Each structure stands twice: as C-alpha cells, then as structure tokens.
C-alpha cells in the first residue's frame, strides 16, 4: 500500500474513533445545576427582537457540552439573568473571570490578557486619551469568535502535522480518563489548526472590510483590491495553503488579536518584516523562499481608492465625506514612490484600454462591413 493511502486511512480511522468517542460519551454533559434548561431545552424557544432579527434561545446541552465552553456554567458568562423574564440580562463580556482555575497559575481564568492586547491593535478601541471615532464599527470578540457550537471539532483532524494519534495516545497513557484527555488535547492544540478554510477567512474579513462606507469612516479603503491578485485566484481554485488574509497579515509567530497598521514596525507587512513574511515565516512556512527586499516591495493588493486620491487621479470634495477622510489618511500612508508606480501602472492600463478597443473595434468594423458586402452582392445576383 502506498504511504499516502495509508495516511488517509489512519486519519479516517482516527476520525471515526473520535466521532464514536463523543457520541457514546455519557458523562460529558454537566448537570444543569442552574436549571436553565427548564425553559431553554425547547427548540422552538426564541423571538424577533426590536430590530427584527430572529433570536434563538434554544440550547442543545449535548452540543454545548462538546463546545469550547462546555465546562462552564451559564451564569459564568451571562451575568444577571436572575429575574424571569430576564430584564436584567447584561451583554456577554469576555473579560469576566469565569470561575475556572487555570492550573499553571492557579488563578481564575479570564480572557482579559487577550482583550488588553487586542485593544491596542488596529481593531481595538484605541487608548483612553485618544479613543477611535465610530466605536460601533469596531469588531468585538463575538464578531469573529462565533463559537460555532454546531461545527464538529473532530472533523478538523488530519489538517495539521502537529496533531497525531501518537501524541494523543501518549497523553492517554497517563491521563486514563479518555474524555478529559481528548478535551484537553483539543483545547491546547486548538491554535495549531486552522479552524476556518481560506474562503471562510476571506468572507469573515471582507464582511467589514469590503464595506467601503464603513471603511472610509476610518480612513481605509475596501479590500476588494485583493481580488485582483494571483493569491485570490489560488483561493478560488481551492489550492491547499492558498494565501488568504491571515497568511500575510497574521503569519506564523503573530496573533490575530494584535494586527498592527502597516506603518507600525511590529506589523508583519511593515517593510522591515515583509521579506520574512514572504519568504520564511518563523522558519515554518515559506511561500517565496528566494524573496528579496525588492521582491517584497512589489504590491500584493492592487492600488485602490486611497492611492488614486493621493495621486490626484480621483478628486475628493468637502461634500464627499468618504473620499475626503480617505484623502487625509492617504497623504500619510501613500509614499511618493507608490504614487509614481501607480501612475506608471495606470499608463500601461490606459494604453491597453485605448489600444484594445481601437484595434479590435476597427477589426470588428471591417469584418462587419465585409459580411454586409457579401450578403448584398448575393442578393443582387439573384
């Protein structure tokens, strides 16, 4: 048997094994000490809220038990909810301490470290002295972490070489409680796997970043410019390891919670770090092994509105708030070199924009006349 088939077979067997493991795990579901399921076990439970959005309040306890937060009590995250109906309910705050002791420090666990880091990143609220405008546009934890209870964690097995049944088997050697070992293993290997495919990542990022009005409020342009690249074509053709947003903006060794502006030296796409991002990410991933400094100065996204505004190819007026804000940012962001490149690029584009219709138009005109001539001469002959 060829080793590749053997590999697939092992993974399939492992997948099935894990799958059965979770189905038959009866001790998984925690007892409902808060008695929330008294009401929330009914699948029809839900309503339309004031804005007309359908809200479902049904909780499938088995699926919940298998989710990342399966070991938590409901009130650990949903503060309030002491009255019925729940008029006192507060929005879920991920910085709350959730009454689980983290074994390595023996402190109560909370996501606050991550949130603090996140607040200083491009997506955060900014500092207290200098808060960002339009805070309602900024993504919060839940905008990306949908906590997809429905998706099966076990289905991701075999997508990373860091995960193997051998490793898990070693854990189970000491940690004889298989369910616990498996859960813990899944928990700490979570960051070694991709939980979203490339199109899913692009869909998630573009759900905000393609909204040009929302972006313009923050001096940004739509990232539809990505769709003019070979990287996008590779994603479209479903290539394994095709580069999506995080491949370059959050390469190996960086975190999604700490994405920086490209002018920040800590950013993976800052000119100083770009060679590494293209050629060798933390010694792990190398897409363009021979990339040089010059290679890395090439543009990955096509030039968008911002560069066009800076180059004076588009004019922003005071009434045109969107573009005016962009122009303000463009003056800082777009260098003179880039303006020059854009001009050369547009010159090439302009040449073909004129040349193609001119040549092809003339040819089509000639062929059309030729065709008419033939038809008319034929009619005459009859």
């Amino acid at each position, binding site marked *: 048997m060829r080793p590749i088939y053997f590999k697939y077979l092992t993974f399939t067997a492992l997948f099935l094994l894990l799958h059965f493991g979770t189905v038959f795990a009866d001790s998984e579901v925690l007892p409902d000490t808060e008695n929330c399921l008294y009401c929330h076990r009914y699948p029809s439970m839900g309503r339309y809220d004031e804005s007309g959005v359908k809200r479902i309040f049904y909780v499938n306890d088995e699926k919940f038990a298998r989710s990342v937060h399966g070991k938590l009590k409901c009130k650990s995250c949903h503060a309030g909810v002491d009255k019925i109906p729940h008029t006192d309910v507060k929005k879920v705050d991920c910085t709350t301490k959730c009454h689980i002791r983290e074994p390595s420090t023996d402190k109560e666990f909370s996501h606050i470290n991550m949130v603090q880091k996140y607040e200083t990143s491009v997506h955060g609220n900014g500092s207290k002295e200098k808060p960002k405008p339009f805070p309602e546009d900024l993504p919060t934890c839940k905008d990306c972490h949908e906590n997809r209870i429905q998706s099966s964690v076990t289905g991701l097995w075999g997508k990373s070489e860091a995960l193997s049944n051998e490793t898990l088997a070693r854990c189970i050697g000491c940690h004889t409680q298989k369910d616990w070992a498996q859960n813990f293993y899944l928990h700490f290997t979570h960051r070694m796997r991709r939980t979203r495919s490339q199109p899913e990542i692009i869909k998630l990022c573009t759900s905000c970043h393609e909204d040009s009005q929302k972006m313009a409020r923050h001096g940004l342009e739509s990232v539809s410019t990505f769709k003019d690249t*070979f990287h996008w*074509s590779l994603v479209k*053709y479903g290539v394994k390891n095709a580069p999506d947003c995080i491949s370059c903006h959050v390469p190996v060794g960086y975190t999604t919670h700490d994405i920086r502006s490209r002018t920040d030296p800590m950013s993976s796409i800052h000119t100083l770090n770009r060679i590494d991002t293209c050629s060798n990410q933390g010694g792990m991933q190398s897409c363009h092994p021979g*990339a040089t400094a*010059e*290679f890395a100065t*090439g543009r990955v996204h096509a030039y968008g509105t911002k560069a066009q505004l800076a180059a004076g190819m588009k004019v922003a007026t005071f009434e045109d708030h969107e573009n005016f804000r962009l122009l303000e940012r463009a003056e800082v962001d777009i260098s003179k070199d880039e303006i020059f490149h854009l001009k050369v690029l547009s010159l090439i*584009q302009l040449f073909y924009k004129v040349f193609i219709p001119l*040549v092809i138009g003339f040819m089509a005109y000639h062929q059309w006349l030729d065709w008419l001539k033939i038809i008319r001469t034929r009619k005459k002959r009859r």
Partner: protein
Amino acid sequence: METHFKIKVKNGKKYFFRFTVNQRFQHILLAILVIVLVLTGMPLKFPQAFWAHQIYSVFGGIRIAPFVHKTAGTMLVLLFVYHLIYLVYTFYQGQVIPLKKKNELSIGKILKTLISHPIVPNLKDIKDILNLLKYLLFLTNKRPEGAVFTWKEKFDYWGPFWGIAIMGSTGLLMWNKELFTKFLPGELINFALIAHSDEALLAALFLFIWHFYNVHFSTSVFPMDTVFITGYLSEKMMVEEHYEYYKEIMTASGYPHEILPPHGVRKPESEHGAVRDNPVKLTDLPRI
C-alpha cells in the same frame, strides 16, 4: 535553398505558392501553443467566470494547468527565438548574398532592402485600407489590388510578433520573480501582471475576431483556407486578395493570356443570359 514552382497546375486549376514547409510548420506549432496558452491562461484571469473551472479541469486543474501553461510558454519563446534566427538567416541568404555578389554591399543598401521587404508595412498598406473601406461602403466598385503580403497578413504577422515579445518577457518575469527581483525593482512584477493579462486579452480577441474570421469564417474560405497545410493558394483567393502580385506572377510564369479579371468583375461571356459554351445536361447533375 528549396526551390518552388510559383504556379502549380493540377486538374486544370492553378495553385499559387505561398509558404515553405518550414514556415507552415512554424505556423502550426504557433497555433497549437497559442490555443493551449489561451485556454490555460484565461481561467486564471477570470477565476470567477462560470467556464473557468471547467476549462481549467480539462488541463488538469490548478495542479497541472499552470505547468502546461509554463511549458507551452517556454516552447513559444523558443519558437520565437528560432523564428528570429530564421529571419536573419533567410534575409542574409535571400538579400545580403545577392548584394554581395553584385558588389553593392553597404549599410544603406541593406537598410533599404530591409525597409522595402514585402512583409514590412508601407504606404501602400494605408492606401489599401482606405480603399478597401471605400469598396466595402459601396463608394467604389474597385477592390484594392493586394501585393505579395496584404495589410491583413501584415497584421496577422506583426500582431503576434509584438504579442509574443510582450507576453514572453512578462511571463518569464512573473514565473521567476524571485530571481529577477535580485536586480530589478519589485514593482515590475505588478507592471508585468497588468501587461501580460491585458496583452493576452488583446491577443485572444485578435485571434478570434480577426484571424479566425479571415481564414475560417469568411464565406470565401469557409470552413477553412487550406493554404496553411498545403502551402498553395487557390486562384480564386489569389485574385481576391493579391491581384497585383497575381498579375505579376502570371506574366512572369508565362500565362499572361489567362489572367482572370479582378474580384467582383464577371467574365463578359457569362453576363446577362449569354449562351454558355457548354450547356448543362440533365445527366451532369448529381443523382439524389
């Protein structure tokens, strides 16, 4: 050098020599390579299109099609280099050596022969384009009389010539971007992508609208002009497209009395119900 009869007579019909075996071989190779390149390239330019994935899968999908594209591209570049050598060689053999023999060799003379070479565009081409438009618009009844190579054929030749130069250089640059950016600026990759992709569109449109119509779909040649296989052109097409050259060749080959009237002008005998030399009999008609 190969020798060819300028006119071949077969079954009472005259055929006019156009292309050598070498040229025909170059053309067929070019045709195959260009079609493969268009089919493996366009799906990358339009990955969203409904046909993109289907065409791509014919060439083995994303894992194999790019390899096919690069192989075909390399072969086309090699063909182009071969053609350049061929050009220099034939020019040397056909034009420079005769000059040498006449002891008239000088740079000015060589330049002059180069400019007056039949494949190089000249003033007559512009006149012919204008006159052809006049003819097609029913402003005149006289079709321009084409020389050895008409302006249409010059388009057919110089279009791909320029196209391969652009496509080849930009393609090689994008293929070996890490290597080339060791000594070239990185923005060139962006410029190359735009030029490669737009030039490809131009080439493909040119091929389908211009060349395919002229040699396949035009009613005079439908379903195809066989000259690219046989190397010889029929008398009808010769009269239609290259009348000036036709008269020249017919006179030189000893058929000055058999020169047909220009395209669109009928023989006086067969006009307006005149009696035919050989009336058609019922038995001549094909059985149904």
